[in-house]
């Protein structure tokens, strides 16, 4: 992607060097889509870093207006590192990494300077008057306006990373259309009410992405959580990169009757998602054909299993997935905003939708040792039994956090007002770090936080206890999240979970919901 990719020998340029790099977490990335510039912590080199990012962004196809927006966001992030990450006289370097992603560019600024304390980040107040305005926090504010994704990760001893993602301004199928009200009951995925129809199920072709996007919009309005689906160019690019595998059911006349997909994300099992059947083909077995196709392909890919998010506003998705062999194992309460608007428009948090997670193994699950917190051990063991996973619950002897530094990744989906916390390494500062991150997320008006904790780590029970002190609640488990299974916890910022409104099908889901409710201090 970048011209600097060819600079394999680390070309020295004063305080800068360019090289193609591959980090462990990026092992699967095509090196041609990836480049890194190492920069001295001196404002003098900022223009060169910006030229480099501009070059990468130009090659991705960004136009002049977006190039300036990217440049501004990177300048703010880089200047912030130079001015705040190091002591005044400290001579150091940091990396600016560009990676082409599906229809966009990811830029990561990674430094080994001082740890990041989000509570020290001032919040810019655009509505302040001249006397009150200090300009503090303006850089961060502009970054958020100009990129589509923005996150800061504490990498423990590896420093910290600011990650920016900008997508190309491609067609959004719903742009300019009036807001579409959500159907009263979202489409039942496969309720046989009419004659089954013969369809040919196959992987989606690139030129069919627009039809798929329209189908999703027609069925879900703008409410579907996987935002990329509304951008046909992104759908095509994600299918090409393998992050999304879309299957379509095509009628004899060549019309797309339905869509279902596998979604791949870091440290998560593959998800079966984005089920949609055109109105006139509903109840005719289309979703069943698509699910069978995806199941077979997933097995052929040697995936251990798939998980699905099953809505609770109606029972159909749960019933459909249970028939396919999915077993309920967790809740993501208030996961989806009731109505989702684009960036800059606050989502309606009054009635967020909750999902039940179901998992299906394709092969007998390997035995494992888990460290559940005593308090939730019985429920966790029940969930494993329900999944048919031979898990041995061990009692943790850990009584304090390890002395190392915590590695924590926190990402925010602003559109859904949703935060996601992963902690690959627990350290002595995990409690403080969680506290500070919640403070920041609350300020950023994140409504719901979902945290995945490693059940194979003996320290997890301590972290669960600390998180519960901060207001997190246990909501279930999800197997095969990266190298282990996860215990899921959630934290709510002014969101009321209406447990009575959950429509649940399985005994496990009902029992788990009752259990969560009983342990939720905010439940009424």
């Amino acid at each position, binding site marked *: 992607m970048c011209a600097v990719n060819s600079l394999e020998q680390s070309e020295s340029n004063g305080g800068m060097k360019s090289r193609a790099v591959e980090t462990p977490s990026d092992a699967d990335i095509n090196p041609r889509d990836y480049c890194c510039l190492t920069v001295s912590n001196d404002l003098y080199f900022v*223009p060169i870093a910006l030229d480099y990012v501009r070059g990468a962004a130009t090659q991705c196809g960004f136009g002049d207006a977006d190039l300036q927006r990217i440049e501004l966001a990177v300048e703010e992030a880089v200047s912030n590192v130079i001015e705040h990450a190091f002591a005044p006289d400290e001579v150091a370097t940091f990396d600016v990494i560009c990676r082409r992603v599906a229809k966009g560019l990811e830029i990561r600024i990674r430094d080994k300077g001082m740890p990041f304390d989000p509570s020290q980040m001032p919040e810019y107040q655009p509505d302040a008057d001249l006397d009150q305005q200090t*300009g503090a926090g303006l850089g961060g504010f*502009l970054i958020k306006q100009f990129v589509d994704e923005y996150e800061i990760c504490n990498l423990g001893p590896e420093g910290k990373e600011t990650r920016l993602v900008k997508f190309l301004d491609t067609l959004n199928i719903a742009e300019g259309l009036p807001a579409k009200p959500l159907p009263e009951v979202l489409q039942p995925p496969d309720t046989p009410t009419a004659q089954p129809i013969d369809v040919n199920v196959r992987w989606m072709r690139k030129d069919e992405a627009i039809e798929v996007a329209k189908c999703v919009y027609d069925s879900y309005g703008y409410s579907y959580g996987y935002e990329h689906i509304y951008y046909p160019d992104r759908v095509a690019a994600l299918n090409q990169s393998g992050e999304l595998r879309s299957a379509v059911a095509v009628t004899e006349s060549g019309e797309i009757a339905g869509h279902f997909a596998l979604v791949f994300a870091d440290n998560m099992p593959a998800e079966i998602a984005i089920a949609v059947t055109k109105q006139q083909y509903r109840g005719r077995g289309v979703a069943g054909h698509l699910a069978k196709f995806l199941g077979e392909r997933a097995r052929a890919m040697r995936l251990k299993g798939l998980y699905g998010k099953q809505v609770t506003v109606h029972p159909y998705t749960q019933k459909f997935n249970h028939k396919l062999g999915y077993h309920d194992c967790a809740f993501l309460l208030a996961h989806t905003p009731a109505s989702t608007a684009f960036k800059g428009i606050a989502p309606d948090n009054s009635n967020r939708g909750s999902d039940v997670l179901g998992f299906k193994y394709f092969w007998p699950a390997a035995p494992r040792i888990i460290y559940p917190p005593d308090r939730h051990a019985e429920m966790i063991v029940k969930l494993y039994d329900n999944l048919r996973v031979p898990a041995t619950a061990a009692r943790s002897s850990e009584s304090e956090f390890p002395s190392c530094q915590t590695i924590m990744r926190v990402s925010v989906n602003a559109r859904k007002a949703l935060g996601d916390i992963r902690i690959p390494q627990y350290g002595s500062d995990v409690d403080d770090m969680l506290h500070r991150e919640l403070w920041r997320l609350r300020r950023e008006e994140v409504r719901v936080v979902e945290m995945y904790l490693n059940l194979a780590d003996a320290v997890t029970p301590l972290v669960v206890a600390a998180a519960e002190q901060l207001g997190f609640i246990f909501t279930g488990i999800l197997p095969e999240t990266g190298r282990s299974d996860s215990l899921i916890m959630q934290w709510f910022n002014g969101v009321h979970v209406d447990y009575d409104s959950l429509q649940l099908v399985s005994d496990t889901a009902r029992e788990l919901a009752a259990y969560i409710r009983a342990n939720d201090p905010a439940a009424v």
Partner: protein
Amino acid sequence: MQCVCDKTGEATVIKVSGRLNAAFAPEFDQECGKWIDEEGTYLVLDLEELDYISSAGLRCILMVAKRLKAKGGKLAMCGLQGMVEEVVNLSGFAAYIPIFPSVPEAL
């Protein structure tokens, strides 16, 4: 970045061109500083040829506005276009710094 000053009647017009970011903010600040200390100065920033502005540039403009106000002076901006206009609008500066299409309207 380049600054060219022009005294027009009661107003001082500073035409700023190029890029106003962290690298050039001190220079801009110094240029504006020449006029701020006079009582009742009306300073007009002509940004028609400014291609790029970052938070460092915006903060400089903010500080100029504050210092002028303290001395009984005023600041205005004109000729904003492209990303400069976008950034200024987002930052909320228009609420306390008058913005005009061009220099004649600002005078």
